[in-house]
């Protein structure tokens, strides 16, 4: 089954990339962009077929490797 993980910076953490993108969009003439945040999006193809177990599994991957809980949040979706 496929797992999709979104890793985003915690809201209070500075996002230099987002800031720069928002700035560049302004320079390109896009107005009305108030805030931009950049995160990571990871797609995993996993063997596990039991959704509960799969979720647990991916959660543990996030905690141990994919995200750094000091500055990042993560969200998991499963399908298939």
């Amino acid at each position: 089954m496929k797992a999709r993980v979104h890793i985003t910076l915690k809201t209070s953490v500075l996002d230099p990339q987002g800031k720069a993108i928002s700035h560049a969009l302004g320079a390109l003439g896009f107005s009305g962009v108030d805030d931009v945040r950049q995160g990571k999006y990871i797609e995993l193809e996993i063997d596990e077929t039991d959704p509960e177990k799969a979720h647990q599994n991916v959660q543990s991957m996030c905690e141990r490797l994919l995200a750094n809980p000091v500055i990042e949040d993560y969200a998991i979706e499963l399908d298939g």
Partner: protein
Amino acid sequence: MSAITPEIVAEHGFTKAEYAEVLSILGREPNITELGIFSVMWSEHCSYKSSKKWLKTLPTEAKWVICGPGENAGVIDIGDNQAVIFKMESHNHPSFIEPYQGAATGVGGILRDVFTMGARPIANMNALRFGAPDHPKTRHLVSGVVAGVGGYGNCIGVPTVGGECQFHPSYNGNNLVNAMTVGLAPADRIFYSAATGIGNPVVYVGSKTGRDGIHGATMASAEFDDASDEKRPTVQVGDPFTEKLLLEACLELMATETIVAIQDMGAAGLTSSSFEMASKGGTGIEMNLDKVPVRETGMTPYEILLSESQERMLIVLKPGCEETARAIFDKWELDFAIVGKLTDSGRMVLTMHGEIAADLPIAPLVAASPEYDRPWVETPKRAELAPSEVAAPADISAALKAILGSPNHASRRWIWEQYDHMVMGDTVQRPGGDAAIVRVHGTSKGLAITSDCNPRYCFADPETGGAQAVAEAWRNLIACGAKPLAITDNMNFGNPERPEIMGQFVGAIKGMGAACKALDFPVVSGNVSLYNETNGEGILPTPVIGGVGLIDDLDHQAVPAFTKPQEAIILIGETRGWLGVSAYLEVIENREDGAPPPIDLAIERRNGDFVRNLIAAGRIKTCHDLSDGGLGLGLTEMAIAGGIGAIVSPPENLDIPLHAWLFGEDQSRYLLTTDEPETILSQAATAEVPAMVIGTTGGDTLTVGSAIAISLSELTKTHEAWFPAYMAAPDEN
């Protein structure tokens, strides 16, 4: 405003006595914002309360010192109206929690300390210490810290030209990340932080303030426990791009006649920068916190004052210069806000939403910042270890290779290849040598830069270890032909409330001070990081020394690599085969006992001056100092670096075992090569410097008597293999 409960007071790290002092200074209860200000101002990190008494004993003066400790960084004169500004700083705790960002923001912070004084940063150094290689966290920390140091320095475009990296189990729970920046400024345009001129505008520039690292300064002073992982204090994210803009904007502003005083916002952000500026200038400050550019909504005065958002500066301008300054920061697309003015009240008066958020007397708060004479006990002396007490290795070639390929002595190429060490186009000696050399742009002068400390020596004998760290830095500069000028230090220790730890600190300072004095090598800046302990396990005492020296003419420098075959190899200094706390013991016998090698500072100076004069006179081009791993490792490094082998013969009447001769770590020694050995030997004799020819360069094998014959390619492979292999191995945690 919420009442101040004893719990709140305790959370802010005050002792009872300290809080009583707060009450007596104010004559009333503080509000929460004021309490927060007191707590960061009196934290170990900002107040140096445990270390002040001892730091004051270090020599800080020399003819060439323009500004010693006390400002953002130290300043020395290198002639031609040029000054070198440098300092080292730790970011130990943040780098343990979030290695990439912790290390990156450490680099960002030390860069600001240097450019806030008017210098363009021209080189970075990094001194790293990690736990045992097989500890489950180590690999992850190494990988993140190195990427973070590189990520920040590479992006801002300042070359990272050298450093150190060691492993020891005592750092398992507390790695050390010490970053150093060296900058160059016109000697008559140094900027200081004393705020003067009543009515002058106080200006905030750089990035906006967010809720980053609030209480970072107190965190850096608190001991760790295993739960720290979960506490997850906010770690700041670095923005090197913004720092690059800030650097260019500040330098542009500094070229105008608009600045009275300038100070970066480092630990404890707006609070410590404003208090320091006002207290140095003897003024008061009035600030309207509504004017501070903020990134988030609803920030309280407490948060604005204690935030450690990066890439910010506080400036006092000359009257009427606001628009000139604003135009420069507008050009660089940075925030610029007039947040207040200097007053004659001697008080810090902060308002927000039309109310007074804090009103504190500046001088009493700063003057009353605690200073402790903490109890300390001297570290007991260890017994010396005679060469005969260390068994000969079964196979001396294998021993050499084992040391060469061991975690603490293998090549650090894996690290420095991740650092842009050439940007700015002046790197004359790249990482891998004794000291890095960067040219002073547009001249034929060079600066030699090194960072050194042997924490195992310091643990065994803090005083000798402290002296040795200074002497080794001095020696590294000498070995490339520089005149050593001054040092910065980074004192990394455990919990100073424990008398043994305090004793290590005191011992190290005593040793450092003696060496600085004997070698005319004063301390011009530094940083103290205490409480590097987890669950009561302290780190090895680690007083890191960053040294800077001057090469007058880059045509006369030396490299630690054999450059020509058929040259005589001369060993300078006396060899007695000192194996206590040596690399040999560590790697081959897996022990750390014995006393570290003693240093006679007069001999140190005599040997060093002799070598430096030879290089400065253009007489020798190849020189390497001997440190851990002794003669054996030194020779091998020179052969590998030059791609040229050597045939070495131990003295015929050798009265110590061969392994002691090869791996002993006697101090004050150098190896050099020459095609006029007789002349050099006779000059050495005149100068009373021990010197002997031990061999000849050439071939593609390193041969020592009949005991060792190893091909260069094998030596190189051994030296280069460990780090990349270790980092590529899978994590087992």
